[in-house]
């Protein structure tokens, strides 16, 4: 009885119906995800439709969202299970089907690669001005409360508190310093304006924040706009408070206080990830076609310095030609400041090779299969020609 049920389940899992339904569902998801990009931005739509197991929708009048549609992750998982089951169930060493087996093995790898990308890929960026040396990456989305010890003009000591820790009411000790930071209020996104006469007093009593009016806003939806992440904070050391400050990613002016002879600079900035090597931008080039403003090429000539490995070399990063180093790929992404500032996109994806391998497999499999089919067709035609 149980055995019969198991057999039926197994047969169902390996069946072609499941494949077809899953493929059609995937098509519907792709269409929905594409259309949703106008409202949610690419990342928002991909997270909502492709990287989720269920697509949730908040219905009017209901206190909780409802799962309306299977998500890309679920469909992908079903496809992989279905394919694996089909491969196991129907596998026989029939050379005529060899191509198809290879194709489907490659497909499993391709979907696995997309899962790996969704789970492990980390996107960061590196912003360098010409002549500047940078040894950290910046997050695109996460922010941190930056604390820079600038006492020694030759060497700045950097500390950062990532935004998940910046919750109102929290008190976060800064490792390596005697300081701890009280978070009084935190805004994922906010609008800042000069405080007018009638506005309520600011929470800040130190720095520029005292004259700023701040209004909380919804987090940015599209990929283009960034958040103006802000917080009211109070640095405390040994029982002494240094006042309440407003820090925000859109406030450029440096704000600092002195504790026991050491000067600390406060800032809200993109979260930093420090590297064991440094990159110097020697030259950024923005070539255009003569007589037009159509860009022909963007390139960054950088110097890579990794003393631990004894590496000192120049690298030219340009369109379609990233630098792959230390498990990361550095791409020319953007530029600024009158072509003296280069922004490199830095991607770490441990699964980046998977699509390449799977593509090779699938292409090979398709070629084998179509050669076999073509060969058989020609043979059939010849046979029927002889009999006719």
């Amino acid at each position, binding site marked *: 009885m149980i055995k019969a049920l198991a057999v039926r389940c197994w047969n169902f899992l390996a069946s072609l119906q499941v494949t077809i339904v899953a493929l059609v569902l995937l*098509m519907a998801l792709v269409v929905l995800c594409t259309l949703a990009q106008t409202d949610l931005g*690419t990342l928002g739509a991909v997270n909502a439709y492709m990287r989720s197991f269920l697509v949730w929708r908040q219905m009017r009048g209901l206190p909780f969202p409802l799962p309306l549609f299977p998500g890309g992750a679920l469909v992908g998982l079903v496809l992989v299970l279905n394919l694996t089951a089909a491969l196991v169930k129907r596998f026989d060493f029939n050379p005529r089907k060899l191509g198809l087996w290879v194709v489907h093995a490659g497909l499993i790898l391709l979907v696995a690669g997309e899962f790996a990308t969704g789970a492990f890929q980390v996107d960061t960026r590196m912003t360098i001005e010409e002549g500047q040396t940078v040894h950290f990456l910046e997050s695109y989305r996460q922010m941190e409360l930056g604390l820079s010890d600038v006492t020694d003009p030759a060497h700045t000591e950097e500390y950062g508190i990532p935004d998940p820790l910046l919750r109102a009411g929290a008190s976060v000790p800064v490792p390596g310093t005697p300081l701890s930071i009280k978070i009084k209020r935190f805004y994922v996104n906010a609008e800042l304006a000069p405080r007018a006469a009638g506005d309520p007093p600011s929470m800040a009593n130190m720095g520029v924040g005292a004259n700023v009016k701040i209004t909380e806003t919804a987090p940015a939806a599209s990929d283009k706009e960034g958040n103006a992440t802000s917080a009211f904070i109070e640095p405390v050391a040994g029982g002494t408070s240094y006042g309440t400050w407003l820090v925000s990613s859109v406030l450029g002016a440096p704000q600092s206080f002195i504790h026991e002879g050491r000067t600390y600079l406060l800032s809200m900035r993109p979260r930093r990830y420090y590297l064991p090597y440094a990159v110097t931008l020697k030259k950024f080039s923005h070539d255009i*076609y*003569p*007589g*037009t403003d159509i860009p022909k090429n963007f390139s960054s000539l950088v110097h890579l310095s990794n003393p631990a490995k004894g590496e000192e070399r120049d690298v030219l990063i340009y369109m379609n030609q*990233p630098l792959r180093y230390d498990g990361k790929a550095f*791409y020319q992404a953007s530029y600024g400041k009158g072509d003296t500032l280069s922004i490199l996109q830095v991607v770490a994806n441990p699964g980046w090779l998977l*699509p*390449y391998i799977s593509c090779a497999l699938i292409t090979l499999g398709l070629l084998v299969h179509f050669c076999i089919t073509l060969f058989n067709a020609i043979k059939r035609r010849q046979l029927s020609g002889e009999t006719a």
Partner: protein
Amino acid sequence: MKLSKLFTWLPGLIALAAVLATALPPARIRGFDMDKFGRLPVLEGGRVKPLDSVARNALLMIRSKQSVPFEGRELGPDEWLLDLLFRPQTADAQPVFVINDPDVLGLMGLKQSANRYFSFDAIAPRLQEIENQARAAQALESAQRSRFQNAVVNLYERLLLFNQLENSVQLGDSPGLYLELQALGTPQAAERNKSLAGAARFRILAPLPGQGPDAWQNTGEGLIAANGAAPHPALVSLALAGAGYKAGQPEAFNQGVAELQGLTANLRPQALRHADSEFLFNRIQPFYLGMVIYVLALLTLFASWLWRRDLLQPAAFSLLAAGALVHTVGLVSRILLQGRPPVTNLYSSAVFVGWAAVILGVILERMYRKGFGTAVAASAGFASLIIAHHLAMEGDTMEMMRAVLDSNFWLATHVVTVTVGYSGTFLAGIIAIAYTLRKHIAPTLDPATTRTLVDMTYGIVCFALLFSFVGTVLGGIWADQSWGRFWGWDPKENGALLIVLWNAVILHCRWGDYIRDKGLMACAIFGNIITSLSWFGVNMLGIGLHSYGFMDQAFWVLAWFVASQLALIVLCLMPRRFWAARTT
């Protein structure tokens, strides 16, 4: 026997002879050697091209046609450009601006009528108002503009282009280059030459010996440089040609142009050769002629179903072959002229999709010899060239490639493969349409032909899956090389993925026996919808890294196409001649 064989090839040969005849130079107009003028190379839009290309592309953008009717004659693009450069008052009176939008017409105080073409003089009184409206609309992103705002921005951009061209060799109110050369050194001249240098659309003065290949100058820059130094020799010849044209003296004009040509031949022989080839390409218009030949092939084939099939079906095939040859020569010419793989933008993708479908159709016809290969190939070729013809209104079709696209390797591999995948999916869809129409129209259904159509469709779907998949994957690899991710769910990528998935769905349904002939055909027609949305619909979303070619007006055309395909699917699934009364 041999005679009838010759007769079947005759239509194709005649078509080719007619194509060759268009390459012959036309007679001089009013004695002016406009041909030689049109061949002169200039630098515009980042590349060297003949003046004829500048004139044609501009006229296409402004008027959507390659000629202007004026004073009882049709002016060609070169003559129009000459008027614009040297007889601006005349050019301002020529009806070159096509305005279709009723609200824009209303803005100018005009009613919608049969006449849709207006001269600059007719628009001039409302210039300020148009500029104000366009500036206000330009502040919005193009996706948020209303139809009127898009139309007024479009008109404003065409007016700017017209104005730039008019001020490209000398200012519109200039007494001529001779006097400009004599006036050098005066403060007014410095001012005038500065504004000329800023306004000019193209650079006509070839780099002098010792200068780099990109150092082309416009006449304004040339006049500024000539202050206190020897003028660029071409300036003097240009002055002669201009004065001759203005005064109606062909000898002076022809001499000036001949001098210019000689000078360029010395300075930049390669530019002159390139301009010559492109000029010839422009004059023959292989894609337009190919389109005409495809229509003839289609008509001949239709006729063959009514009369003398033995004679007309091969004749139709010979026309198809002639059309394919002209199409191929055009495609190869573009590749050589541009130094790029065949697909570089939306326009060339249309040309290439059609070409690949035609070649596949020719192969199918040779394999099965039922006439259906000819029918689908000719309709695919005709449809794609019509689309390309309309896409050419957007400007220079051999524009330069933006930085990330500037990679011949990926253009040749990813773009070509994915486009062949489009061709295959469309071809399968067209065969399925032929199947549907035949099912309802043909008096009797020969089962062998039905079998052939189904086999063809099945084979083409396999082919399309192979190419669209490999092309999509190559695109992923390119994206990994340039943007740091293999797959980003970008709209264009999603469009390509949909084609792959749909072809896979069709094949799996077929293998599982969930669909038979009719279902296969209906699915193949649905493939047309998916491919057209992926090809053009994505550009209308205006998001994502791939949306280089945004289109405003094609939306409704696409909507009608989708509706027509849905209707065909229904027709395909209905029983044969369902409308006729059933006999008992």
